[in-house]
């Protein structure tokens, strides 16, 4: 199907003058505002902690400004019609993440308070610098993506390449020995760690799988949607068409069992089901996918003690058996809850809380340190930023002119929403706690770089979607000649 032959009415009436729809200046002002928030947060931390060097903070801030405005310039150059909210939201979230990691890194250093007077054991002295380097890498990847992928549809043909690569990246840690793939202090096997440098390949695997699903569903979506079997009163997909969902379900279950990674498995399943639903418009797929995941989760809970433990901790976080006895499985989530409770409505102020009591507060639990220091007010703002990013992504999907773009944009956006839900719901004990990353905020390069890439993909799709239809070269009669790039 060719999508460029006629102006899409959905875009609305495109004004003859295309300049106002670019909104790049809006983006720039919002970027400045975002950077202002980040700088203010940095100054906040510096003011409330002891022995702070403004020159260091200024250095960090300058690097940060350079990269995010680099991203802005790249968008101006290569995706001028991209949604103007994507980049500012990413900027403020990434910046706050850096500030929080800097703040956590200061705990126990330079006479600043910490649990035992020592720095957080799982946070190296160079964590802030690393996080900034990862931000730089993430932005560079976004720039390269925008510069070289001029049209997202160039990715469409690689259905099975991406699919296979995605599964390999996600499955790799399960095959490697725990010494390489295990995350210290947890039973999860989700990384590849060699010589002090570690990446979490699943973060990239998720993106590849999203692209793979999108392209698979562009070709097979109609089939899945039209050919159904009547089963009692339900009209269900043909059994042979169930194969792909079964494959994905199996991969997701294997993730659960071999990598002890419930969170990613849920996000992954949700991504697939959402895209299937978008492609077919049939709710039965959503229901089937959801039921399959629930079934799988219960099976996993029965089979894998670690998964079962997560459930018991979720139901009874404060019971003596979970909190005080044995290896204290609920210690970490409960400390996170205590942190958020300590923050209350307005928070203790950046640098004023005690997030250092919570184990792995810089990664799994970073949301709770925002809860403690910025309070309910702060976390609501963060959740609204996330929500806004998701809604901009889904808006992009609505505006997109081709199925692949629509599927990819909606899949990526929903996956992002689901990831936020799983981790934030997890640390607040709304759902069982699972150690997945908090987009943009958590310490760790893979997640940060992959999330910037996700923003890059959304920017590329929204650029195409919002780009006004090519102007007719002549305007006579019914026949029009259009430029096809």
């Amino acid at each position, binding site marked *: 199907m060719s999508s460029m032959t006629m102006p899409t009415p959905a875009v609305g009436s495109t004004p003859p003058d295309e300049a106002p729809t670019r909104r790049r200046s809006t983006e720039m002002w919002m970027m400045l505002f975002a950077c202002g928030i980040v700088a203010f947060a940095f100054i906040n931390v510096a003011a409330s902690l002891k022995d702070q060097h403004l020159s260091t903070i200024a250095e960090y801030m300058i690097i940060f400004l350079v990269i995010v405005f680099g991203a802005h310039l790249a968008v101006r150059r290569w995706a001028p019609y991209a949604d103007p909210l994507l980049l500012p939201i990413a900027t403020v979230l990434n910046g706050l993440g850096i500030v929080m990691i800097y703040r956590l890194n200061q705990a126990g250093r330079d006479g600043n308070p910490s649990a035992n007077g020592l720095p957080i054991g799982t946070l190296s002295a160079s964590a802030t610098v690393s996080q900034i380097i990862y931000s730089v890498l993430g932005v560079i990847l976004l720039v390269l993506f925008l510069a070289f992928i001029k049209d997202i549809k160039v990715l469409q043909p690689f259905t099975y390449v991406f699919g296979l690569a995605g599964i390999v990246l996600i499955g790799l840690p399960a095959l490697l020995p725990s010494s390489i793939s295990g995350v210290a202090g947890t039973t999860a096997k989700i990384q590849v760690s060699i010589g002090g440098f570690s990446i979490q390949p699943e973060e990239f695997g998720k993106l590849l799988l999203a692209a793979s699903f999108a392209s698979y569903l562009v070709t097979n979506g109609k089939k899945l949607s039209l050919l159904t079997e009547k089963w009692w009163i339900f009209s269900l997909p043909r059994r042979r068409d169930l194969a792909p969902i079964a494959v994905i379900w199996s991969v997701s279950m294997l993730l659960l069992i071999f990598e002890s990674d419930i969170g990613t498995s849920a996000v992954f399943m949700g991504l697939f089901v959402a895209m299937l639903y978008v492609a077919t418009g049939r709710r039965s797929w959503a229901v089937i996918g959801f039921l399959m995941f629930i079934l799988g989760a219960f099976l996993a809970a029965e089979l894998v003690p670690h998964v079962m433990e997560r459930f018991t901790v979720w139901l009874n976080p404060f019971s003596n058996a979970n909190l005080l006895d044995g290896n204290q499985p609920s210690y970490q989530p409960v400390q996170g809850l205590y942190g958020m409770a300590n923050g*209350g409505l307005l928070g203790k102020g950046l640098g004023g809380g005690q997030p250092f009591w919570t184990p792995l507060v810089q990664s799994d639990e970073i949301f709770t340190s925002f809860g403690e220091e910025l309070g309910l007010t702060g976390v609501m703002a963060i959740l609204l930023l996330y929500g806004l990013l998701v809604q901009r992504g889904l808006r992009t*999907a609505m505006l997109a002119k081709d199925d692949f773009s629509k599927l990819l944009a909606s899949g990526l956006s929903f996956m992002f929403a689901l990831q936020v839900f799983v981790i934030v719901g997890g640390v607040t004990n709304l759902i069982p706690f699972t150690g997945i990353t908090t987009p943009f905020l958590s310490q760790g390069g893979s997640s940060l770089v992959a999330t910037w890439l996700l923003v890059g993909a959304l920017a590329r799709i929204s650029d195409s979607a919002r780009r006004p239809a090519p102007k007719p070269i002549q305007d006579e009669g019914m026949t029009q000649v259009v430029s096809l790039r």
Partner: protein
Amino acid sequence: MTGMNRPIKRIALAALVLFVVLLLDVNYLQAVQAPSLANKPLNDRTEYEQNQVQRGNIVTADGVTIATSKPSKGLFPYQRVYPGGAAYAPVTGYDTVFSQAQAPNYATGVERAENDLLTGTGSQLAFRNFIDTLTNKAQQGATVQTTINSKAQTAAYQQLQATLQGKTFNGKQAVGGVVALNPSTGAILAMASYPSYNPNELAVQNTTTLNNVDNELNNEDPSPLLNNATQTTLPPGSTFKIVTTSTWYDQDSARNPEIAVASPQPLTLPNGNTLSNDAGETCGTGAPTTPVIYAFAQSCNTPFAELGVQLGGSKIKSMATQYGFNNSSALNIPGVTVAPSNFTAQSDPSFTAYDAIGQEDTTETPLQEAMVAATVANNGVLMKPYLVQQVTASDLSVVDQTQPQELSQPISSTIAGYEKQMMIAVVQQPEGTGYAFNSNNEGGIEIAGKTGTAQNGVSAQSDAVFTAFAPADNPKIAVGVMIEGGGYGAAAAAPVAVAVIKAYLATLGIQ
């Protein structure tokens, strides 16, 4: 193609629902659930925050600082210091940098009871803290002023120490306690215990040290951590005759101290056993009857044992209960752990005979001793003892103040007058058990008291008890003293009480 927009809208709606759920969730957690999470197990945050604040001082009524926080270079910015040391340990208790969840022995005494105000986190201070936040002033703990008089307290501890140091009972260190009350308010003027401990040793910033010191003190027998002034009960001996005669007077308004009652030697009990006076001496002139006041002053046993038999256990128990016995809930005193004093109504009158003279299963604390004297001194009205006088915020405004509270009225003012008359006789009359020390040691202050020498199973070492108030005509202080294995009440316990009385009255200008 545009057919996908409907499902995408639904997906957008689903995402919106997810975020709305998360927003409700964080609101519930941080706005609703938060206060209840603050004191859950292993929540170190509250205690940690309290340790960042300069904890308020604990001072005596006359302004002597007995607990303070000094800047420290340790893990926490302040170190708790107890300038009063062992003498004030039963009052201050101690405080560590730990929370109850971290160490159940984290704090005791006033330090524990007034923790919220001392750390400045109490709800009464919330508004001031808010103002301090706005004006960027560091939060400071409130000052707790106790009712303790430093002169009386020092005298009480020094006398106890002088009396008990190196003395053993049943092969262990003998214990003793002193409580002095203001009879008209119930304010605790002195509360001393021996053996005591140095709270500075427990005000530590390290759980291992805390537990080592705490275990060491707990394993000592008797443990110095026990406040013998309020937690150790001993037989009151003859001092209980105040309660027995109160019951007797209360039965018939015609009764007065001059009425003669049977005073055999020995008394044959209903069960055939005999009960004797001290050292088998005769009561009064040896006549078959003796006036109550004379028998009381000489502290004969048989007349009061006989009264006990006649009155019966339940009547005496009801009187004792009004005096504060058997009643631990009424003695819920912030900052003080009180063990109940006991009087059991025995059905066998032979046992009641012993109970009535403060033996058998009648036991009480020095605090209860002081309360009995205070009741008599206060015309029959028992005021509830209290230790915390008032709490002042860092801006010197009063946050909390204890109002004197009437606990009960065991006896009428007439009966209180009779008891006072009898207690004066103990000290003033030549036959009185307290006459000897009074004529030797005492100056112009008229003291009313009652001695007790309670048998405890160790023949040569009776428990010495003395309960007194002074000045007899206008009582300002009531004292209860108990010395385990001290011997005669007049010899071992009375001098301690007199020293406390003198020290306190001197501060009032009464000499």
